[in-house]
C-alpha cells in the first residue's frame, strides 16, 4: 500500500449543541480499502461527507494528496461518492446517468460512449443503456451508481452503506463484486458500514468509531483478535467481557479465580477488562476446568452449538461443536493465548474517548 492520500487532521464538527466529531485524526493510504465501522449515529456519514466536501468541519483540515482541500467545493474534488440511496437521476436513462459527469467535463461523444460501455460491463449490466433508473432493482441501481462514479476516474471512491438496502444474498454477492472492482480499478475505497461482518470481509483497514471518536484502527484480524477496549470487543462479534484485576504480568484474576495469560505491562493489581471470544471457551469435565459451572441454555446454530454457562456468578457465552445438555455440570478452560486484557476505562464516558494509534 502506498502513501497517505487523504489526511484528516483534528476534524471537529457539531450540529448546534451536538458534537458529532471531536478532534478526529485519520489518514487513508493510496489503494487502501478502508472501512469506517460503528453503530448508527456515530458520525460515519459525517466523516464521509467532510471528505466529499458536502460538509465543512468546524475545526481541522482535510489534506488530499498533499494539498489542503478543506474549502474546496465538492465539484472540484477528485473523488466520487456512491450515496446510501444511490441518488440516480430518475429523469434520465442509465446511459445519461453514467454520462453526466463526463458531459459536464465536455468529453467527446465517442469517449463517453466508450466509457458507458466499459462501465456497464464492469458492473455486469451490459445493454442497460436505455432503461430508466426506476425500472431497475435495488442491486442494479447500486451498480449503476458505482458505474456513474467510476467513469470519472476518481482517485478515491466514497461509499456510504452502499449495501444497506439490499437483501442478505445480494449483499454477499455485492461484497465480492466490490472487492473485485477495487482490485480491477486499483483505486482507494472509503467504505462506511455498521455491519461488522461486512467490514471484516472486505477491508484492508477498519476504523471503529463510537460517538464521534475513533476507538481502534487496524486490520480486520487485529480488530477481531485484539480489541483495544470493551466497546470494540463488544461491537466486533460476540464476546465475554469480564471485569478483573491484573495481578502481575501474565497473570489475571477474575470471577475469584486466577488465569494465566500472555499480556504484559499493565502493572500490578490494576483493574482491567478481560475479553474472551465464545469459540475460545473450552468445556471440559468439571474437575478439569479452571472454574466450574452449569449449562443454562442450549441452541443449535448449524455449524456449532451455542450455550450459556453459569460459572463464578457470570453468564458465559460458549460456542462449541460439542454439545453439553442443559443442567450438565461442566468445567471451563481457556487457553492463555485466547485471554485478551484491556485497560479499564475510569468512567462510562471514557469508554468513547479516542485511543491513540
Amino acid at each position, binding site marked *: 500500500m502506498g502513501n497517505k492520500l487523504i489526511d484528516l487532521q483534528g476534524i471537529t464538527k457539531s450540529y448546534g449543541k451536538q458534537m458529532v466529531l471531536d478532534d478526529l485524526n485519520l489518514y487513508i493510504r493510496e489503494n487502501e480499502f478502508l472501512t469506517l465501522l460503528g453503530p448508527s449515529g456515530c458520525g460515519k456519514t459525517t466523516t464521509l461527507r467532510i471528505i*466529499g*466536501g458536502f460538509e465543512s468541519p468546524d475545526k481541522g483540515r482535510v489534506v488530499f494528496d498533499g494539498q489542503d482541500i478543506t474549502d474546496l*467545493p465538492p*465539484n472540484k474534488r477528485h473523488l466520487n461518492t456512491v*450515496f446510501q440511496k444511490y*441518488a*440516480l437521476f430518475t*429523469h434520465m436513462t442509465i446511459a445519461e446517468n453514467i454520462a*453526466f459527469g463526463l458531459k459536464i467535463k465536455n468529453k467527446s461523444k465517442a469517449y463517453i460512449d466508450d466509457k458507458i460501455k466499459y462501465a456497464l460491463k464492469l458492473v455486469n449490466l451490459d445493454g442497460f443503456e436505455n432503461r430508466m433508473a426506476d425500472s431497475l432493482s435495488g442491486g442494479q441501481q447500486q451498480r449503476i451508481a458505482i458505474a456513474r462514479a467510476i467513469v470519472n476516474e476518481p482517485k478515491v471512491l466514497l461509499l456510504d452503506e452502499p449495501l444497506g438496502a439490499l437483501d442478505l444474498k445480494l449483499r454477499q454477492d455485492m461484497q465480492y463484486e466490490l472487492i473485485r472492482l477495487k482490485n480491477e480499478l486499483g483505486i482507494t475505497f472509503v467504505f462506511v458500514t455498521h455491519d461488522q461482518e461486512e467490514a471484516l470481509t472486505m477491508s484492508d483497514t477498519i476504523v471503529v468509531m463510537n460517538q464521534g471518536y475513533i476507538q481502534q484502527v487496524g486490520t480486520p484480524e487485529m480488530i477481531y483478535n485484539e480489541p483495544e477496549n470493551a466497546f470494540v470487543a463488544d461491537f466486533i462479534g460476540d464476546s465475554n467481557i469480564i471485569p478483573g484485576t491484573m495481578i502481575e504480568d501474565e497473570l489475571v484474576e477474575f470471577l475469584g479465580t486466577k488465569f494465566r495469560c500472555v499480556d504484559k505491562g499493565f502493572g500490578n493489581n490494576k483493574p482491567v477488562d478481560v475479553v474472551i471470544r465464545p469459540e475460545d471457551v473450552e468445556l471440559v469435565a468439571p474437575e478439569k476446568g479452571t472454574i466450574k459451572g452449569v449449562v443454562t441454555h442450549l441452541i443449535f446454530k448449524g455449524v456449532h452449538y451455542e450455550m450459556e454457562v453459569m460459572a463464578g456468578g457470570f453468564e458465559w457465552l460458549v460456542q462449541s461443536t460439542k454439545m453439553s445438555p442443559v443442567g450438565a455440570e461442566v468445567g471451563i478452560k481457556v487457553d492463555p493465548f485466547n485471554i485478551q486484557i484491556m485497560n479499564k476505562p475510569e468512567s462510562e464516558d471514557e469508554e468513547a474517548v479516542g485511543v491513540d494509534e
Partner: protein
Amino acid sequence: MRNCAKRIYLFLMVLFLYLPIFVLIVASFNDSKILGKWNGFTLEWYKQLFDNASIMNALRTTIVLALLASIIATVLGTLACITISKMKKSTKSIVVGITNIPMLNAEIVTALAFMLLFVGLGISLSFSTVLIAHVTFCIPYVVLNVLPKVSQMDNNMYEAALDLGATPFQAFYKVTLPEIMPGILSGFLMSFTMSIDDFIITHFTRGSGIDTLSTKIYTEVRKGIKPEMYALSTLLFVTVFVLLFLVNYGPKTKAKKSFTTLIFKNKVTVAISMCVVIIASVFGYNLLKDDKNYIGDVYVYNWGEYIDPAVIELFEERTGYKVHYEEFETNEEMYTIIAKGARTYDVICPSDYMVEKMIENELLAEIDYSNIPNISNIGTQYMNSAQGFDPGNKYCVPYCWGTVGIMYNKNMVDDEVNSWGILFNEKYEDNILMQASVRDAYCVALSYLGYSINTLNEDELKEATDLLVAQKPIVQAYVVDQVRDKMIKNAAALAVIYSGEAIYMQKENPDLEYVVPDEGSNVWIDGWVIPKDCQNKEAAEAWINFLCEPEIALMNFEYITYSTPNVAARELIEDEEIRNSQIAFPDESILSRCSVYNYLGKEGDTLYDYYWTMVGGAESD
C-alpha cells in the same frame, strides 16, 4: 344484479354532473335562440363569437393574464418550495399551512381583501392589480404541486450532481429542475386553469377597460343570454377540461413522463413558442391602440345593453378616441366603484336619483356645454324634468327616459289591467315577476296605496312593506334581467317593467301589453355625467355630444328601444306607429301621473334598505 344497480347509480351521477354542461354545449350548436327548441345544427354562434371584437379582446386579455400570472406564480412558487423544503420540520408545516389557507378561503373574501388593499394603498385598479391578485392566488396551487416533488426528491441527488463535477447552478438546472419538472408543469397548468377560470377576484380587482372572458360572460349574460355566450362557455369548458385532464392524468402515466422529458429536451422550442404566444398576444393587444386615427382613450361606464355597439365603433372612427366600455347592473354598484375611487371612468350614465346623490357628494364635474352643441336636440321638457334632480342642468345630459309599468300577457290575464292591484291578485299566483330593486318595488306598493314614491313617512313605508311581504308568496320571482326572457317565453303573466323594455318585448311576443296604472308611477331619466376624477374631460364631452346627434340617438333608440329625449331623433323615426307609440312617447295625461325618484339622503336610503330586507326581494330568485 348489484352490478347493474351500481352502473345505474354511476350513470345517474355522471348525468347530474354533466347534464347542465351538456345542455349548454348542445345549445351552442342549436340554430334557434330559444332553449329547448332544436332547429338544427349551426356554427353561426361560433362565427358571431369570433366576429365580436370585444369578446376577442377579452380572450386576449384572458390569455395574456393567465400566461403571465401562471409563469410568475410558477417561478415564485417553485423557489418558495425549495426554500420551504430546506426548513426545519416544525417551521415547514407552519409555512405550508399558511400557504394552503388562501386556497380554502372563500374567494369573495380574498377578492374583497384585494380590492380593499389596492384602494387603501391608493393604487387604482388596472391590469397590474388583476395580475398581482392572480399571481397571489395561483402561488398556493404551484406550492401544492411542486412541494411534494421537492420533498420526494432524494436530497442526495443534488449533491450527486455536485459530486460528479456540476457547479451548483448546473446541478440545479440539470438535475433538481428536471426532477421536479412534472410538479412544476402541473402547478403551471393548474395556475393557468385557475386564472382562466377565475371570475370573482378578477371582477373585484380589474381596472376600467379590462375584461376577461369570465367577466365578459357575466356582463353579457345579465342582458339576457345570447347564444354566442353558449358557444363561449362551451369553449371555456373544453379548455379548462383539457387542462385539468393534463394535470390529473398526466403525471401518473409513463406517457407523461416522456412528455415531460420531451418538453424538457425541447425546452428551447417550448421557451420560444411560449414567448411567441405572449408577444403575439401583447402585440395584438397593443395593435388596437396603434390605430393611426388614435388620439386618446375614453372610459365609459354604462348600463348593460344600453347602447348600440355600432355607435361605439362609429364614435371611434369619427373621433379617434379608443372607447373602453364597461357596464354596471345597478346604480348602487356603480356608485360604490366611483365613490371608493376603485376605478376611474370619464363618463357615466346613472339614473336621476343617483345623479342627485352624486352631486350631493361632490363626485361630479360640471359639463361645459360649449363643447356639446348638440344639446339643442334634447327637448326642453326633458331638460326641465331633469332639473328635478339636477337643478340648473349643470351635471347631467338626459340619455333615455321612461316609465315604470305593468307588462302582461293578454292570453294569460283576463281581467282589465289598469291598477297596481292586479299584482296582488292571488289568481295570478306564481305568474308575477317583480323588480329586484328597492325603489321599483316600493314604487309599486306606495303608488297602489296612494302615497308618494319618495315618502319618508315610516307608517306609510311600513304599510307598503306589509303589502309586499303579503304578496311575496304569490310572486314567482324578484328578478333583475330575466324579465324579458320569461315574458317572451310565456313563462309569466304579469311583470313590473320599464317602458323601454316593453317595446322590445312586444316586438318579440305580440301577446304582451304595457300599462302605466291609474294610481301613477315613476318616470325616470338616465343621463350622462362626468365624474370629478375623470382623466379626459374633452373625450367625455365629445362622447356626450356625439350621442346627442339625431342619427346616433335614433340608432340607439332603435337598438335599446327606451324612449329618447332627443326630439330631433324622434322626428327621424320612420315607423309612424312607433313615432306615435304611447309606450315610447306617452302623452301628457300619463306623464302627469308620474314623478321622478328623488335622492332620499343617507337616512332615507337606510330606512328603505331596512324595510327592503324584511321583504327579502333581493335574496329571492
